């Protein structure tokens, strides 16, 4: 039995990631049109499909990243606590629901302190909202491996969206095969 919606979603997300990766490779940036719209759709999808606290937190972190250092950290912790407490009331509490909350805060703060670009942050948050923490782990591990290769070659420059896309597409392939 083929899960057609899952297959279509996997194909669409893969195509989107390939386009983002090509943009990153060519210009070292991804146009906002390619990241903001999927981010907003992912927020709505997450809110609709069951992880509303993570969706709320993703929106809240957009505001938080505009604050000064101390307020940003304070509001991040407060928002995370709110999202976790909300989780206890409105959904089943498990790793699948709680980890995306921590990932969203972590990525947002990483961007805030200059560790990552806005495009990467939005893509990683979008993937986490859509597929939960497994897609994030695949993407991050692929990024780490690409980073190691870059370090071995003494190449400091890394178009990060390329390994993120590769890792996520691998995850989608594994997920699709598992579903079938």
């Amino acid at each position, binding site marked *: 039995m083929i899960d057609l919606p899952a297959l279509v979603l996997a194909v669409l997300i893969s195509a989107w990631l390939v386009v983002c990766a090509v943009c990153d490779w060519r210009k070292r940036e991804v*146009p906002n049109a390619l990241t903001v719209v999927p981010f907003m759709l992912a927020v709505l999808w997450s809110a609709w499909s069951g992880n509303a606290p993570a969706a709320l937190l993703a929106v809240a972190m957009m505001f938080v990243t505009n604050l000064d250092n101390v307020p940003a950290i304070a509001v991040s912790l407060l928002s995370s606590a709110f999202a976790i407490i909300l989780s206890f009331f409105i959904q089943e509490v498990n790793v699948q629901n709680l980890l995306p909350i921590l990932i969203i805060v972590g990525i947002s703060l990483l961007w805030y302190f200059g560790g990552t670009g806005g*495009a990467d942050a939005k893509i990683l948050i979008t993937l986490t909202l859509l597929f939960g923490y497994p897609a994030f782990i695949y993407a*991050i*591990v692929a990024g*780490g491996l690409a980073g190691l290769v870059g*370090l071995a070659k003494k190449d400091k420059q890394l178009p*990060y969206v390329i390994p993120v896309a590769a890792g996520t597409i691998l995850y989608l392939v594994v997920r699709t095969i598992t579903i079938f």
Partner: protein
Amino acid sequence: MENKGLKLYVRMLNEAKAIESTEVAVIIAVVVLVAIGAYTLLGGKISEVVTDVAGRI
């Protein structure tokens, strides 16, 4: 004030730059893998605590 707020709001959404540093990519991966390792070792305990807290609430 409202205009300033609106500009601030779109700051992260507006940034199109992507990460370029190999070191940062490796550091992020290592942190995540260490967290996964810690969870694998302590996962049962963490689940118990979470379930306990959820039960109390």
